């Protein structure tokens, strides 16, 4: 049984049909890179999977359990899904009024109701994992972009998600800070975590993903192994997209 099963997912913003019937199965341990031009619906697809956006049509099934019924979702149900599906954002979305460790502890304390000491210990562990043990008491305003994103990753990891969604995690970073974030994500990949990653880093997708999906006009245009999609694309639009990414090097 797939960890995540998506059928006929559609989403529209006003007159703009962003997603047109996405079918997708994610097996535990898969690492899927989602590529596509801006406006192709990559981020919206990701945001529909943890219901940051409500799909207009289609079903999302997590561990065999369908979420929502006839397009209606209960708050409690969505809260439960979001605890199992972690998300890392392009703009980090750290809480500026809390220190780094406060950010990581927040979900543990408020959502999982862990006692302070247990939450603190767990948060320290996650900060150490992303190499920021020494920044625990620093406020986000005093962290670099790369450090902020690593705190955001630690914050998501602390909730023990079964599936991690990365929404262009390095797109807002200065080029010299991209590497430190990708290193952290690669380490998570090596642990065998299940993840969906919207990215423009084709080289990273090639080396880390187990499957690559190319989106165009809100539909899956082409998908396959990184080698198939990135080195031997069969469709014209995929080829053109890859050719435009000149920085792509293997």
């Amino acid at each position, binding site marked *: 049984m797939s960890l995540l099963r998506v059928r006929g997912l559609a989403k529209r913003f006003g007159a703009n049909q962003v997603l047109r019937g996405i079918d997708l199965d994610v097996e535990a341990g898969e690492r899927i890179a989602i590529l596509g031009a801006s406006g192709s619906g990559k981020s919206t697809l990701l945001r529909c999977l*943890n219901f*940051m956006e409500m799909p207009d049509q289609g079903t999302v099934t997590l561990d065999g359990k369908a979420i929502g019924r006839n397009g209606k979702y209960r*708050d409690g149900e969505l*809260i*439960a899904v*979001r*605890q199992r599906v*972690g*998300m890392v*954002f392009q*703009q980090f*979305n*750290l*809480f*500026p*009024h809390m220190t780094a460790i406060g950010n990581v502890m*927040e*979900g543990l304390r*408020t*959502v999982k109701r862990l006692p302070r000491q247990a939450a603190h210990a767990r948060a320290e562990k996650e900060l150490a994992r992303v190499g920021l043990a020494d920044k625990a008491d620093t*406020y986000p*305003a005093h962290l670099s972009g790369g450090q902020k994103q690593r705190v*955001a990753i630690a*914050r*998501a990891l602390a*909730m023990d998600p079964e599936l991690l969604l990365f929404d262009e995690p390095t797109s807002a970073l200065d080029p010299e800070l991209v590497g430190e974030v990708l290193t952290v994500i690669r380490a998570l990949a090596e642990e065998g975590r299940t993840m969906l990653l919207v990215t423009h880093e084709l080289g990273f997708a090639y080396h880390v993903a187990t499957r690559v999906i190319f989106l165009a006009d809100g539909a899956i245009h082409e998908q396959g192994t990184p080698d198939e999609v990135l080195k031997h694309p069969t469709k014209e639009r995929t080829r053109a997209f890859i050719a435009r990414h000149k920085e792509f090097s293997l």
Partner: protein
Amino acid sequence: MKWDFASVFANWDALLAGAAGTLRIFAICLVLGLSLGLVVGLGRYARHSWAYWPATSFVEFFRNTPVLVQILWFYFALPILAPFEISPLAAAALGISLNSAAFSAEIYRGGIQSIEPGQWDGARALGMSWAQAMRRIILPQALKRMTPALTNRAIEIFKMSTLASAVAYVELLQQGKLIASINYNPIEAYTAVAVIFFVFLWPLVQFTYLLERRLRRDE
């Protein structure tokens, strides 16, 4: 003419009672006004119509009628419609609190709306409910931004307390009026009242500057 403050000083006990009355009604209206304002402001922010419409009607009604009229209405009209007496303090506190709630509700709503949507995303992605996200993530940041506007509101409430004199509640202005009418010294009596207000409010305003500076520090 000659200024003669001796007749004012002679009535220092009356002014003291007035100051106590002013502080009492200020404290009541500050707590009631700002806390009720938060509830109404959340109602204005909410998308559910059962919360939005009552909150919006409340704000529109109390923003568009004068506080003085509200106080007089509570004091003179309400007891005719309802089977109970209402004290001058209750009538004045009710008028000033409800009016302040309406104005501060708009401050709360604006402050909450000024928080970028990414903060909601970050909170919801962790599995927080609307109420948890509001309490832990949105309000603490919004309150910081609202501090200047809310402290202004507090100063307004302090000054609005003089309207309670319209229903003969014992506060500073009421006592000033009393002293002036007994001693025929309106210049000195009202000057004394103004000076006492200044002495109370000036440190309060300085304190709000200090507060604003401190709040900006960790940004």
